[in-house]
């Protein structure tokens, strides 16, 4: 795994990366300008500053020259057709792609102005700061308590049992699960419903005091009620965390996110305020996708 340890791009090249609106074109004629994005891909004082990111699996490019800022405490949704690279891009943010041998990541990826891919960086610490929730709930085969306590124990976040108890309770409360499980914290986590397991995974991520939570289609395995509860949770959590959510559901992206980023064949085509993306997007391809003209 290589990375180019470049500094953030100078400001004068920012305008090159913001392309003009491309609307009213047929999808087959609509142009994507490589390396530049329509809308508002950049932010003031971002949490993540990502420049010229390229990811490939062996010889196959998956992410092509993407530049994006992710704002502090914003909820940003990544949408796009299957295979567009949104999950690959998400996994760059906490180096989960490291576990894939043939995956190569290039470009500048900064978290709070520190290089995510600095070889000297502690990846475990990174993944505590940038937590992740996956599509299929994956609680450990342990008790509910131990699932949540595992991370704080590993990271030495609690000296005494009472501190650990507090962390577990706070995390379960924030995940909206405490009232349902407070009387059975010793019960095995795998005995819970899918929705409860997913909220447990969220509690587990919260327990190590992250700054960012990455969510890769967190509701696609859940029923509508569990989905609504997780979405409600995202709204509450956004006050304290930066959240990046990959979703196949257009309506979910419209409901939960502040900005929406549309990916297409490895390119970042458009980033805009979510309200704008779903009422009057700037790029024809974005509009064609969200209106169900292709996918």
């Amino acid at each position, binding site marked *: 795994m290589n990375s180019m340890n470049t500094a953030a791009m100078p400001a004068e090249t920012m305008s090159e990366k913001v392309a003009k609106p491309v609307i009213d074109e047929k999808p087959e004629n609509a142009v994507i300008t490589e390396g530049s994005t329509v809308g508002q891909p950049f932010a003031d004082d971002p949490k993540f500053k990502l420049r010229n990111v390229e990811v490939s699996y062996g010889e196959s490019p998956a992410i092509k020259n993407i530049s994006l800022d992710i704002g502090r405490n914003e909820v940003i949704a990544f949408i796009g057709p299957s295979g567009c690279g949104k999950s690959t891009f998400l996994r760059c943010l906490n180096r989960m792609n490291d576990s894939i041998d043939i995956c190569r990541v290039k470009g500048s990826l900064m978290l709070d102005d520190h290089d995510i891919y600095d070889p000297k960086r502690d990846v475990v610490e990174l993944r505590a700061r940038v937590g992740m929730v996956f599509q299929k709930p994956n609680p450990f085969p342990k008790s509910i308590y131990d699932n949540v306590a595992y991370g704080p124990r590993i990271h030495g976040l609690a000296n005494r049992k009472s501190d650990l108890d507090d962390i577990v309770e706070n995390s379960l409360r924030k995940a909206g699960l405490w009232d349902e499980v407070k009387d059975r914290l010793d019960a095995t986590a795998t005995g819970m419903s899918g929705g409860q397991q997913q909220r447990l995974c969220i509690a587990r991520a919260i327990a190590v005091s992250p700054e960012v939570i990455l969510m890769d289609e967190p509701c696609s395995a859940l029923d509508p009620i569990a989905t609504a509860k997780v979405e409600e949770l995202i709204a509450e959590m956004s006050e304290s965390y930066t959240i990046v959510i990959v979703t196949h559901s*257009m309506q979910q992206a419209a409901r939960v996110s502040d900005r929406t980023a549309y990916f297409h064949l490895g390119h970042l085509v458009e980033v805009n305020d979510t309200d704008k993306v*779903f*009422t009057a997007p700037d790029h024809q391809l974005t509009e064609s996708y*969200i*209106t169900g*003209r*292709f996918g």
Partner: protein
Amino acid sequence: MSNTKDDVYGDHISARFNDELTELKTQFLNMGGMVESQVEQAIEALTNNDSQLAEDVRLNDKTVDRMEMDLDEEAILVIARRQPAARDLRLVISVIKMVADLERVGDEAKKIAKMAIKLSEEGQAPRGYVEIRHIGKHVQSMLHDALDAFARLDTDQALRVMKEDKQVDEEYQAAARALLTFMMEDARNITRCMMVMWVLRALERIGDHACNIAEHVIFMAKGEDVRHASMEETERVVGR
């Protein structure tokens, strides 16, 4: 209206979604055609002193009302089934709003028809028919052009309709002043001239509704709401 290759509301993966939007547009244009015909016949009934034609217009307003309800219901179902986004959402929302304008135009046509019946009973008014024909022609053409702009998503044409509205207002003011003078000259004219005033007012309102429809067409096409924008701002949106 067919779902041609150039139809910007077609090409969904779901052919049924294409059909639903096509049906919505077709029904809207049918209602537009019905309302245009109502206005034309109401003016004709008035100027030709044809109370039977006027009565037909009055009765046909029920059809217009039913079309309004059917269209609203259809639009609601599209929203419920499809959760439309972007231009599809703007189309559905605009249709709901424009249907209300069309229904009001239908009501104005009914008012004109009622005046036609009254005037045929009271005896024709001594003045105002030239103005009615002139303003009537003007607003009919605005309404037709607004509906045509919808059918072709022609924002330039929609803008032209919006610019006509000011002229209609001026023509109405001039006609009202002339009628007022006439009424002051001879009090026996007042009752019948007031009826002509109501007709002129109804025609001026039809012009306003045509202008509203044009504004919604611009919103549908460009995604910007120009309802309370200046003409310069609207020109900028259309020209973009």
